């Protein structure tokens, strides 16, 4: 896979997450959770987001659903 093709895919995935995300919900969260959700929107990396939030991956995934952040498959 070519690098520019990969970058295009990643940028598209990020734009979809940004578009679908419930920003009102995200902005109301305590700082650590808010930072983790923003990281998730920007990168799609649930594991690192869960470490930022100090939660398990499943707990982070529950928050992801509540914040309406999709898992995007380019």
């Amino acid at each position, binding site marked *: *896979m070519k690098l520019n093709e*990969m970058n295009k895919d990643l940028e598209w995935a990020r734009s979809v997450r940004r578009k679908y995300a419930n920003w009102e919900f995200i902005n109301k969260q305590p700082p650590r959770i808010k930072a983790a959700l923003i990281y998730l929107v920007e990168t799609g990396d649930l*594991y690192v987001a869960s470490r930022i939030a100090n939660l*398990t991956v499943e707990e982070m995934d529950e928050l*992801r659903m509540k914040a309406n952040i*999709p898992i*995007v498959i*380019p």
Partner: protein
Amino acid sequence: MIGVADTCFIIDWSKYSNREVLFKLFNKVLILKQVLDEVRREETLNYIVQKMMTEQIEFYEPSTLVLREADEIVRRSISIPHLRRVDLPEALCIAIGRGYGYVVLTENLGAYYFVKHEDRYKHVIIWRSIDVLREAYLKGFLHGDPLNIIEEYQRETKHVFSKREINRFIELVSRRKHERGTN
């Protein structure tokens, strides 16, 4: 066929109403200790434990050698500019996939791009949920309009598949139908 699932995949897959098709495709799915540690919800735990009791899911504790290889994968992914990082749970799945030929079940883009980029891991098979849905459909474990199947999975698990992936799915299904019709 044996699969090895990472955390995000198994958590989301367990929410899907047609989740049983996974065990029609795979004789067994391995769940690593590091993956099980991340599960908290009672429904997900019950689902996994029930599948362990029927030996469709097997608990697997990686050896020191696998852990070492996974750590190398994480470090390598971080060191390559522009490549997405691979996290430890996915790295463990990739190391097991390479060593034993098991299909890696993950949605993690870092893992997906890493095996395409690294010669040592090029033969590792990675299936994302859309790949599992496609294979299940082609083998006759899922029926009906393929678009409805895709939409159902996206809705129930909050996933978004690209048009390219959806079209690939539909084209493959149409081609198979055509081949069956002409044989």
